[in-house]
């Protein structure tokens, strides 16, 4: 149930930002570290080192954060009511996964105004796999009245390493969830700040122009020569940092190396959107990123954060 003490503009069913703040508040109450977004372009919240790397190794970890996510290929020039090349994911990672993770998730839905007495929430099989991260897990997509609102995954492997203990990951698609609780059909109509009349700022006010411009960029103008070079450089730098940081039992530069892996992955997504990667090349690019991810995972396990 939505906290009745909230002023109207802070209600998660009235304001996009309030939805986000409510989730942060909820997971802060569960003992999570509330992080800010990672300062790099990523395709999903999972890429944040707070998930990918922290899922590895024996140390307990609880974190939640919003992650702007970029999927260059999903751009629709601002003309599709549901698809965006830039959107927000709310990411929760709990390691080890607690026994009541499903209940916690349902409570979080309740907190943002999904009344579980009238809405049909279902856990429908959806196993997760990230070929570029060398990661997979089992779980569900969570449906609310037939709409997928979250992904729920028990990580089994990340960067090619077994996860022990196992981390539970929740990913909320914030725009979709907000559209649902606000009852709007078009993402650009979402009320962003919860104000009305002249004071109201919509999601379109904030992001429509960006969607149009980036769609142009992603599909038509992104400089492919530069991107091909950037991929090569990021890959090279990643290897270089991994080698330089390798101190035998310990590793001293897992995080900077992983940044380059993230960069390579995003550059690949842009190249893919520009249509300059053939089907067979595509596979080999994915493998190259995975090799980086695996090497970074191995390095992380030799750091303090990785439990070494």
């Amino acid at each position, binding site marked *: 149930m939505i906290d009745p003490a909230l002023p109207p503009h802070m209600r998660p069913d009235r304001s996009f930002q309030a939805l986000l703040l409510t989730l942060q508040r909820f997971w802060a109450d569960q003992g999570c570290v509330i992080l800010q977004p990672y300062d790099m372009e990523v395709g999903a919240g999972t890429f944040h080192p707070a998930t990918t790397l922290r899922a590895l190794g024996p140390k307990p970890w609880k974190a939640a954060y919003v992650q702007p996510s970029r999927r260059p290929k999903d751009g629709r020039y601002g003309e599709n009511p549901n698809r965006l090349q830039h959107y927000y994911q709310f990411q929760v990672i709990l390691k080890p996964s607690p026994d009541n993770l499903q209940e916690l998730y349902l409570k979080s839905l309740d907190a943002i105004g999904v009344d579980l007495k009238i*809405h049909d*929430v279902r856990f429908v099989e959806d196993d997760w796999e990230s070929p570029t991260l060398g990661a997979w897990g089992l779980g569900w997509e969570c449906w609310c009245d037939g709409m997928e609102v979250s992904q729920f995954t028990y990580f089994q492997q990340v960067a090619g390493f077994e996860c*022990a203990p*196992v981390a539970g990951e929740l990913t909320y698609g914030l725009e979709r969830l907000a559209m649902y609780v606000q009852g709007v059909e078009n993402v650009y109509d979402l009320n962003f700040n919860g104000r009305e009349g002249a004071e109201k700022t919509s999601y379109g006010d904030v992001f429509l122009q960006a969607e149009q411009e980036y769609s142009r960029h992603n599909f038509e103008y992104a400089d492919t020569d530069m991107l091909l070079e950037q991929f090569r450089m990021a890959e090279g730098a990643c290897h270089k940092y991994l080698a330089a940081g390798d101190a035998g039992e310990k590793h001293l530069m897992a995080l900077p190396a992983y940044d380059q892996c993230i960069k390579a992955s995003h550059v690949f997504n842009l190249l893919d959107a520009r249509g300059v990667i053939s089907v067979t090349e595509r596979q080999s690019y994915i493998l190259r990123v995975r090799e980086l991810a695996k090497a970074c995972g191995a390095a992380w396990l030799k750091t303090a954060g990785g439990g070494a």
Partner: protein
Amino acid sequence: MPDLLLELFSEEIPARMQAQAADTLRKLVTDALVNRGLLYEGAKAFVTPRRLALAVHGLPGKQADQREEKKGPRVGAPEQALAGFLKSAGLASIDQAKIQSDPKKGDFYIAVVEKKGRPTAEVIAEVIPEVIRTFPWPKSMRWGTGSLRWVRPLHSILCTFGAEGDEPEVVTFEVEGITASNITRGHRFLAPAPFTVKRLDDWMAKLEAAKVVADRDRRKDIILNDAKDLALAAGLELVEDDGLLDEVCGLVEWPVVLMGAFEERFLDIPDEVIRATIRANQKCFVLKDPKTGRLANRFILISNLVATDGGAAIVAGNERVIRARLSDAKFFWDTDRANGLESRMPKFDHITFHEKLGTQAARIARIANLATIIAPQVGADPVLAEEAALIAKADLLTEVVGEFPELQGLMGRYYAQGEGMAAEVAAACEEHYKPQGPGDRTPTAPVSIAVALADKIDTLVGFWAIDEKPTGSKDPYALRRAALGVIRIILENGLRLKLSSLFADLAERLELPEVKGEFRYRTPGAATEEAADLLSFFADRLKVYLRENGARFDLVDAVFALPGQDDLFELVLRMKALARFLESEDGKTLLAGYRRAASILRIEEKKDGKAFKGPTSAALLKEEAEEKLAAAIDDVKEHLAKTIAAEDFEGAMTALSDLRAPVDAFFEAVTVNAEDAALRENRLKLLDEIRTATRAIADFDRIEG
């Protein structure tokens, strides 16, 4: 007799795994009990999204006591042997053993080992943890800090054992920190509080009260009946869908069937697209208007909740999602029709079919060419066949097929119809993919047949050229299915095609693209070899197909052993005639005569180290019987040539049966291994003539029985 109740309570089990898991649980537990001497009267497994359960009815309270006699060494055996015996029988001293007398072997020791039967509950406590730890889920996982694997986190185990009327006991055991109890929970939202249960009937009743229908079949019945009732009340008909029903009954513990609607304007979209949209994305059923036979603008959804608002919010939510999905589908459908199929074609220039086989455009051109070659042989108009082949793949690049790959072909047909293409062309767009599997029908319209054959043969010849053939269980390009498709189209339509020339011709014309800056030149003659190899692959597939359809595998082999077999339909006719012939008296006797001839030849050819080949010399035919046989062979050969040329295989068999009497008479009257070497050789040549004559039909050496 006491009953066992077991319930494994977990997070949501994937719907597609539930039925199998229930069967497996029943089998594993009951087998383990039977192996330990615990027979039972009945067992039934239950499964819902959150629980996997089993009731075993009529078990004994304990295992039967066992008494076993262990035979020991003879009395007076060395110390070492005695010590070993005492140890293996678990005796403290030899005084505890009995002595048994044997009149032949003398006295020896016997130990009587008595094993008390254990209480069944104790055996159950040993069996269940083992079953849980080794349960064969298609995919399993770990969670938290544990090492146990289950399909999703396992939360609790309920296990009781006891006779009716008694208070059943909780079977105590523990699996990785989960202790068995008599506690379970009801529906996640409607009755989450824990409660205790005793046995099956109690469990069922309390679960029902806690809004859980444990029996999967009952959930299916409820869904189907309620869905039909709702449809009927709206004057509509449910479009039944067993696959979907199987899935949705695994997504709910308490099915609540509701009806929603979408705007009528979406009914412009073809029914199949609406159905695919609603089924694939939303797992909802569609409804038909019995007056028009077309879909209605209603759908049936199965929720898992008795909502306090009567389901209004659930229906509204599902309607929203379906509206959005149908909007997408309509947009795709409209876009595709506005673009037209022809507009898709240039894109194939940039799509690789296979790295080593070049673009889709090149492949389509080859298929069109081949279809025009095949067309006259299957009674199709070559112009239409070419037109159909050129457009048949276009729908792969339409928006609707991009979204729903399972609608490939069908969409091509719709679009071709809409664009006013010839009916044969439109039909071929859909039918050239057929048959898709053993249950699918083969195309019968000539233009569809021509394109279907061209498509499949091009695939096969292409992958043969780049040496990507199926091996063992690996067949990533479904080449076996393609070959079987060709076989079925030919046989079921009675087509006469010379496959080897089709293969060789196509292989010859195949231009392999440059790969990684290298042109690959195929050596001269490679095309011929590939075609021959592909034909032998077809022979294997045909054998498998015929055997699966009940043909004698030795006859398939016998007919296939002849060189140059590439007319599949003829081959099958010949095999069937041969099978009937061999069942007749003439056939059996001739086969016996043939074997006698072949056996003598084998022995003598080995002895002399050379083969005897006809023709015979007429001057050396001394006996009447051999003269008659030689004459009969000449006659039969001539007859066979005529009848086979006329494809009169029954006639050919009659001709062959004319050999029976002369062969019999020959063996009766003539000694093959005559003293005179020239006579002997001539007679052996005569035997070879028998062999040669039969070869017009089959290799009789390969016939068994």
